[in-house]
């Protein structure tokens, strides 16, 4: 520096990782959560906007989506919060063996969810080309599928990384904790989507 300096405190003792809002990646993840959440919120607004034009919803006497696949999906994804919370706590405690046991379980649950999601697409009882209702229902389901697919893939990559010696790194534990946080967001966001696809057309 060109001007003379006056030394004050020394920060060498500060940690290089912390959980929660002290972590920089926490802010990145929250940022993306807000972006995605708001995007979904706008799709919800479009849904209600289009619904407001219709005398009946679905319009023209079409059948609403079948409940089975969507409800199964909802139950499974809510149940997945149990291992998810376990992993999150393990990350905070530094319990690497627990993480290594449970993450493949999450990956497997994700695969089952995708299979159910396939059935959901099949049981919407409408094509995306059939009225704006069909388009917005498909849009909701497709966007959420992309959402869960990207998070599942993140989980796969993280699970592989946690099998290496780097799993013991504080920052990797923070990554795991944040990945669990994001999974919570994925199913929390699913709940209103579930209602909009399956229940609002039944009102």
């Amino acid at each position, binding site marked *: *520096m*060109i*001007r*003379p*300096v*006056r*030394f*004050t*405190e*020394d*920060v*060498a*003792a*500060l*940690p*290089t*990782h*912390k959980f929660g*809002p*002290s*972590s*920089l990646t926490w*802010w*990145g993840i929250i*940022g*993306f959560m*807000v*972006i*995605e959440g*708001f*995007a979904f919120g*706008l799709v919800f607004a*479009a849904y209600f*906007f*289009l619904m407001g*034009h*219709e005398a009946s919803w679905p*319009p023209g006497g079409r059948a609403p989506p079948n409940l089975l696949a969507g409800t199964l999906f909802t139950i499974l994804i809510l149940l997945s919060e149990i291992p998810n919370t376990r992993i999150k706590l393990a990350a905070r405690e530094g319990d*690497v063996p627990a993480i290594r046991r449970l993450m493949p379980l999450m990956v497997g649950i994700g695969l089952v969810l995708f299979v159910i999601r396939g059935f959901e697409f099949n049981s919407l009882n409408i094509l*995306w*080309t*059939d*009225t*704006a*209702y*069909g*388009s*917005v229902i*498909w*849009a909701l389901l497709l966007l959420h599928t992309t959402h869960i697919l990207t998070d599942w*893939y993140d989980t796969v*990559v993280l699970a592989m*990384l946690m099998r*290496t*010696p*780097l799993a*013991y*790194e*504080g*920052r990797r534990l923070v990554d795991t904790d944040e990945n669990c946080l994001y999974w919570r967001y994925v199913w929390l966001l699913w709940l209103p989507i579930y209602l909009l696809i399956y229940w609002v057309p039944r009102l």
Partner: protein
Amino acid sequence: MTPYDPRADEQRLARERKKIVRDGPDLTGARLATRLERAWNRPPGLLGWLATVDHKEIGRRYIVTALIFLALGGALALVMRLQLARPDQDLVGAARFNELFTMHGSTMMFLFAVPVMEGVAVYLIPLMLGTRSTAFPRLNAFSYYMYLFGGLMLWGAFVLNVGPDIGWFAYTPLSGPQFSPGKRADVWAQMITFTEISALAAAVVLVATILKCRAPGMTLARMPLYAWAMLVVAVMIIFSMPAVALASSMLISDRLVGTNFFNAWEHGDNLLWQHLFWFFGHPEVYIIFLPATGFVSVIVETFCRRPVFAYPVVVLALISTGILAFGLWVHHMFATGLPRVGYSFYTAASMTVAIPTGLQIFCWLATMWDGRPRLQVPMLYVIGFIVTFVIGGLSGVIIASVPLDLELHDTYFIVAHFHYVLIGGAVFPLLGALTYWFPKITGRMMDDTLGKIGFWMIFLGFQLAFFPMHFAGLLGMPRRVYTYPAGLGLELPNLLSTIGAFVVGASVVLFVVNALWSYFRGVPAPDNPWGASSLEWAVSSPPPVYNFQHIPVVESRTPLWDEPDELPVVTGLRVDEKEMLMTTVVAAAPDLREPVPLPSLWPLISAIATGVLFISSIFSPWAVAVGAIPAAIALTAWFWPKELKRHPEPVLS
């Protein structure tokens, strides 16, 4: 293979940790500088340049690229003005003209205005906040490449005669599958996707940097007003860009796979497009304007030799403008037949937003009153801004009224209004800001005489070009017409506008000439040529790659004015690996030491993969599935550490 023994490894790491070299009273000055440079410099050569994560390099790229797009968009404007100089001309036919105004608007709004503001922020914020890097530097690099590729796609299509011709806000059903066959509209919509992802990524970078990476002691209440402006803008981007991304995706989907979001015959609604677009579109103009108010605050402070009057009022004005901006969008839709009662709310909101801006203006003027203004080139641009922008703001108040807007909507009065607020309100402060920070960025001063001439040319040329447009609109000239008939009284305003436009064009050329000449032959700049107060002026011009040898500590809003002799600093950061300091959100107490990523080609490769995905999805929906695979691989490789060995302290490679 021996199984991994965490405890033995911990002992090794603890030993190595003790050997780490950190900055401090024993390691300072030139010796410190050499070691920091070794750690922070990127590899030389083309690959190193493509792999940079240095915010200063990325910021400069943003600015240069945005200025090139400004020139391209401006050239289109000059062609349009030639066509409109006289009635019933045929220099440019209808179809080509429609492409010209679409490209002009889209280039200026998406490829110049927002990126240039982002670019200046990306360059400046870490320096102003007293840190060594932005948060997420690789994401920062990625966001530049996405912007570049979106711009290249749009302009490539235009040059190949498949450019969009639907206007920069692409109303349906004109932009839909039935009335815009071919790929022109898809190119426009996908350009949106590129630039929106770029802007959102940059916004996340800025929020994280501003909230978590400030110098110790720089509480939110001591943060420079420019940083406040960029914080508000970044949050606004996060809430507004999803709307346009969603709208453009719905449009591509309607066009490509037959959805019916905007198809009135299948229960869709054309107003859905307008609501979604303008929900983004109105905040967008404040996203462009608020950074300029940040520039004005900084320049007024430096050139009036005192901090801006009533800092808390300015901060509250920034925040309330940011919030109010989201409640105005329906004022773009006053002619669509929605209930008048609803419209009244938007009239009231549109007028209310003038209040915080009016208060900011008072604060700047009060600062001039209380200080000793020096009329150097940046300050001239601020004066030009006030004289010009306020006209635009007042014409905005006029069109906030529904009965007035119903005559003036979609006429040249509106064209006049938005150019007054965008050029007066954003471009003038930008030119002042570029002149102001040019010494910091390049190490040389811009030429003063050329600067003054350039200011007067653009200021006067602008008035000549755009003031007559108010009259053209009142005399009955609608927007987006490639010609107009004689006898309506439109000849004189259009001719004057054309002359003025060329004067503006010449002054932009002059600015660029000044910048280029000064870059090579300008007077070398000291670290603080203007005698300013903020931290970026504490380092050399241009700054070293690591910004600060020691992270500074801040004890007031104007650190360099209040600690003129010695700069207080903290010690203890790593010297041989890239590291920066994170502090708490409000009080900026030292919190964490954060490793800063090494240069990497993965952001570029990911941007290429994502770009290929977006461009090919214009042609087939399957491209989304197939193209996702290379994108996923690139993003995984970006995240995956280069070495699976633990370091004593984290290294992001």
